């Protein structure tokens, strides 16, 4: 099965990337975009069909490797 894992900076952590991109959009006239933050997304293919199991595995992968919990949080989308 396919799944997605989103990893993003915690709310309170500065996001220089998001800031620079937001400012660029502003200059291009996108005045309706009032906030923008950047994250990573992992598109994962799992060799199983059990959603619970998949979630478990992704959680473990996030905790161990994919998410730097000091500054980031994550979300699993099945």
């Amino acid at each position, binding site marked *: 099965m396919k799944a997605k894992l989103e990893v993003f900076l915690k709310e309170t952590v500065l996001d*220089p*990337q998001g800031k*620079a*991109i937001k400012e*660029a959009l502003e*200059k*291009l006239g996108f005045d309706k975009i009032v906030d923008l933050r950047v994250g990573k997304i992992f598109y994962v293919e799992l060799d199983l069909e059990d959603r619970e199991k998949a979630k478990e595995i992704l959680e473990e992968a996030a905790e161990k490797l994919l998410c730097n919990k000091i500054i980031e949080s994550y979300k699993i989308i099945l």
Partner: protein
Amino acid sequence: MKVAVIVFPGSNCDFDVYYALKEVSGIPAELVWHKEKSLKGFNGAVLPGGFSYGDYLRAGAIAKFSPVMEEVKKFALEGKPVLGICNGFQILTEAGILPGALLRNKNLKFLCQDVYLRVENKNPIFMKYLKEGDVIKLPIAHMDGNYFCDEETLKDLIEKGQIAFRYSSPDGEIKENSKFNPNGSLYSIAGVLNREGNVLGMMPHPERYVEKLLGSKDGLYIFKSLKKFFTG
């Protein structure tokens, strides 16, 4: 004759290029802020290396919207020389002035090292003093230098003679999957020209090797050629 060295926010080889042009190669040059809307009085432009806008989105992606880029596009169409080095090359591809894109290096790390380049072209503007098969040594310093384009474009580049340099061994051998193509570029491409041959984009830094004191003068081939083009 006068060459504009464009300064984007985050450019950091702007002064190096300016120095190589003006002090070393004797080409009148001026630093031009990216918010400038006109390049009147200039006969060519260099887009220098660095990290425009921090490369925070994709390298070169935001800089392509700088006001001065309209003029750079005009230069490209009018046949005036435009040289993009490193981040400058990335900006030119993002702006669609040159084909392809520059992906993350295949080892995912920034690479600062010497590379050997085999000359693939006898472009009269930038490579007058080089001939096909020559090998020159220049340094690279980038995170995203892994050249990519689709198959059709590659075929086109080859057929139309738009490839300027390819990464090679010191003897000019091309080995795509070896340390001689450190960033993993498609077809070992290190530099490309537009169809008309007046726009050159390259990842290696010719401005860093223009004096013996710093180890090599191979970069001068390109600047001298440019000078010759201007002075006839």
